């Protein structure tokens, strides 16, 4: 029989060292009686076997065993050793949560994590008079398990610029001058307070909504055993007792008359729209009407209609397919990945985008949603023809000398037929209202081409189409 007794500070390291030696010597679980120094002494305690090198364990066991050792009853020590022994024959043991020992270990680990989490949350520091010009804080806390060692780092990382002490019934954790020390020493709960506790309780009481009283939900997450060390909980009984009365009082009081100075206060609103001094420009008028468009079902899912942009008297009008995910959110055409591709090709073709009126054949983004992702969908003939009404108004208003159709949708909208795009690319056609129309590819088509070779070729095609524009405009 082996009866190792582990120290209160450095428990995990001592357990690991001892367990490694026992497991290497193939000592069965039943032959080891684990305990802590100062606990029950054992009648039989054989000397530990000599160290015979390392053991291999999966990484997940290192994490799991760390969470088992602090368990208060000592069951965690035994279980961690039992798993270590079994892992030697069954290395994949921990992936099987149906195994009763694995399940029990996971349950204990969960309880330890909860205890750690509750200590992170419920420790309440109180300021104590300083002696060395640095602010000092102290707290008393009663953890369920022996978690003082694993919990300390959280507070070091959080309160790095102050000196603090956390006292538990068994251990004192001290962080002074950026040095952490843990000492196993018995302590009693002090009577203390901090002037900020009154402000904190004020906050706690007022953030509570009496119309939503759910004391069981509160107690499930903040069990009563923690309350005596949390100053704000003193307010709980009165908050619960008066909740229903406060709620009924609000309901019975009913609506009140508006405050007498409402009108005067409203006048202070500097956001109120000023009466228009100038008549809105023609195109922006169109933009306003477009925002309210419900001519096809696409207005439902999209966030907004995206009007064209550019000089109202541009000689060149460029028509794309429809706004994409980013255009829909930004409310501007050609700003997403396809827009960036277009800008790049236009720059290479020495085309000044800002001199052109840029718009889309369809003004709302069409997509299907998968979870949070919105995937582009091509507009159908009905949607294109519903939206042609806007495109025609843009054409009439801007009155460009040359129109460029990028992609099949634009071609369809402008000529009534979008078929055979690749054959028609580079050609000069006519719009329905008789304007010269240059046909080219849509930049998003270039982005979708999988192999670099065909993409380079298509990019060169579009570049050469765009570089013809200035010549076409001059004629």
């Amino acid at each position: 029989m082996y009866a190792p007794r582990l120290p209160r500070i450095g428990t995990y390291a001592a357990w690991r060292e001892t367990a490694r030696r026992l497991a290497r010597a193939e000592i069965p679980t039943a032959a080891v009686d684990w305990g802590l120094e100062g606990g029950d002494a054992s009648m039989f305690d054989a000397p530990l076997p000599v160290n015979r090198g390392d053991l291999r364990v999966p990484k997940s066991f290192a994490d799991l065993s760390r969470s088992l050792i602090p368990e208060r009853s000592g069951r965690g020590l035994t279980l961690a050793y039992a798993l270590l022994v079994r892992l030697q024959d069954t290395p994949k043991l921990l992936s099987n949560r149906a195994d009763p020992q694995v399940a029990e270990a996971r349950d204990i680990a969960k309880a330890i994590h909860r205890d750690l989490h509750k200590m992170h949350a419920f420790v309440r520091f109180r300021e104590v008079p300083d002696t060395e010009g640095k602010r000092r804080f102290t707290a008393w806390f009663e953890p369920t398990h022996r978690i003082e060692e694993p919990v300390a780092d959280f507070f070091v990382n959080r309160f790095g610029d102050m000196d603090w002490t956390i006292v538990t019934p068994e251990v004192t954790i001290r962080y002074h001058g950026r040095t952490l020390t843990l000492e196993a020493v018995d302590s009693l709960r002090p009577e203390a307070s901090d002037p900020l506790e009154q402000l904190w309780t004020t906050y706690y009481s007022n953030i509570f909504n009496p119309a939503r009283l759910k004391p069981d939900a509160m107690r499930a997450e903040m069990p009563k055993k923690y309350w005596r060390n949390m100053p704000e909980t003193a307010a709980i009984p009165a908050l619960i007792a008066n909740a229903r009365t406060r709620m009924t009082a609000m309901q019975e009081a009913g609506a009140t008359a508006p405050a007498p100075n409402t009108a005067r206060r409203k006048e202070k609103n500097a956001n109120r729209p000023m009466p228009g001094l100038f008549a809105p420009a023609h195109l922006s008028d169109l933009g306003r009407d477009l925002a309210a468009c419900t001519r096809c079902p696409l207005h439902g899912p999209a966030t907004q209609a995206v009007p064209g942009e550019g000089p109202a008297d541009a000689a060149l009008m460029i028509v794309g397919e429809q706004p994409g995910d980013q255009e829909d959110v930004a409310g501007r055409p050609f700003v997403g990945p396809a827009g960036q591709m277009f800008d790049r090709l236009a720059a290479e073709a020495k085309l000044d985008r800002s001199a052109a009126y840029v718009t889309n054949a369809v003004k709302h983004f069409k997509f299907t949603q998968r979870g949070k992702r919105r995937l582009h969908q091509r507009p159908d003939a009905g949607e294109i023809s519903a939206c042609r009404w806007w495109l025609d108004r843009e054409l009439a208003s801007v009155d460009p000398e040359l129109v460029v159709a990028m992609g099949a949708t634009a071609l369809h909208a402008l000529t009534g037929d979008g078929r055979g795009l690749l054959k028609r690319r580079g050609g000069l056609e006519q719009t329905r209202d008789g304007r010269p129309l240059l046909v080219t590819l849509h930049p998003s088509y270039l982005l979708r081409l999988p192999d670099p070779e065909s993409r380079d070729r298509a990019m060169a095609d579009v570049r050469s189409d765009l570089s013809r524009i200035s010549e076409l405009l001059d004629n």
Partner: protein
Amino acid sequence: MAKMTLQEKLALLSDAAKYDASCASSGTTKRGSRDGKGLGSTTGSGICHAYAPDGRCISLLKILMTNYCVYDCAYCVNRVSSNVPRARFTVEEVVWLTTEFYRRNYIEGLFLSSGIVKSSDYTMEEMVRIAEKLRESGFRGYIHLKTIPEASAGLIERAGLAADRLSINVELPTDASVKTYAPEKDPVGIRGAMGKVRLTKEDYSERSYTGRRRGKFAPAGQSTQMIVGADPSDDATILGNANRLYGAYGLKRVYYSAFSPIPDASAVLPLVDPPLMREHRLYQADWLLRFYDFGLDEIVTRDAGGMLDLDVDPKLAWALAHRDRFPVDVNRADKETLLRVPGFGTKIVQRILSARRNGALTLEDIRRMGGRVKQASSFVVARGHTPGQMLDAADLRARFVKPRQMELF
């Protein structure tokens, strides 16, 4: 009027802030202060430092900078026409309260909202100054800033650089309701601001040509809130709107807030008890949409008038209506199918998938892993278990419905 004490201001301005449901402090960048040069740290999942008797987590110091407001939103206790006393914190007061509460481990950080004073830009700039001042003083905890929709792009950018999370409330489920109950608010403007936040964040996440990042903009993302039960919108409308918002603006969360009576109420809204169960069901449905690959039309159907079932959770309601898809064999079914079993969450499904490689699982095995077997047993086949007639029983639904408590008379 006598000058208010800090305690009186705190009482007033936290009371006014409690109608914002969000108190999350999770999902931001990992920070710490072990270098001794600052105060605070952030953890992955956030920490609830206390719970109020309404069962809600208190993680942040949630306050308004001021409850003066020039808007007249019917549902809001701070509307211009309300008779509540008014107060305003100074920048220094908020910084002091936040750090002193933080040092005593009461909070994870600050959630700052505000009524609109003077103009949107003025209000936003004052709020941004508070966040910037906190950061300058070495505060590394969590900051959530409510964003004023009409604020200029430059201020939104500064807000995102100082804060972990930004949020803009859409307030009500439909544009028509916003127009009715919050006449000064503009739903298009609200969405425009959410778009600005999304695009600015994407802009910041791109590396410059030197490969460096320009800084972190709102690392914990953006969220929004909708009030439920103040207007007549049904659940299908609410969830449809939430789904759109998730897709368009990449929101971290949409919060649903059951409309609860306020002191000094407006005449146009009902003073009934808040619909807490409805709010709970909406959150469950929201989860199914985001993490369980359910479609909106599977969760709310027109047969039920576009409303969720209040008696059973939406996943169970779906399973009861699609019994032909069950029983599911826990030892064979794929992940997508297991995720549809009532009583199995994403974690349990992962555990089942990895544990069953070691041999066929029984119901007891699944209970040990943490699955809610009582609910699942009617819908699954496991080693030594078939639901038999249970699945076809006419009263299957009734078995899951808790009997209603008798009302006190």
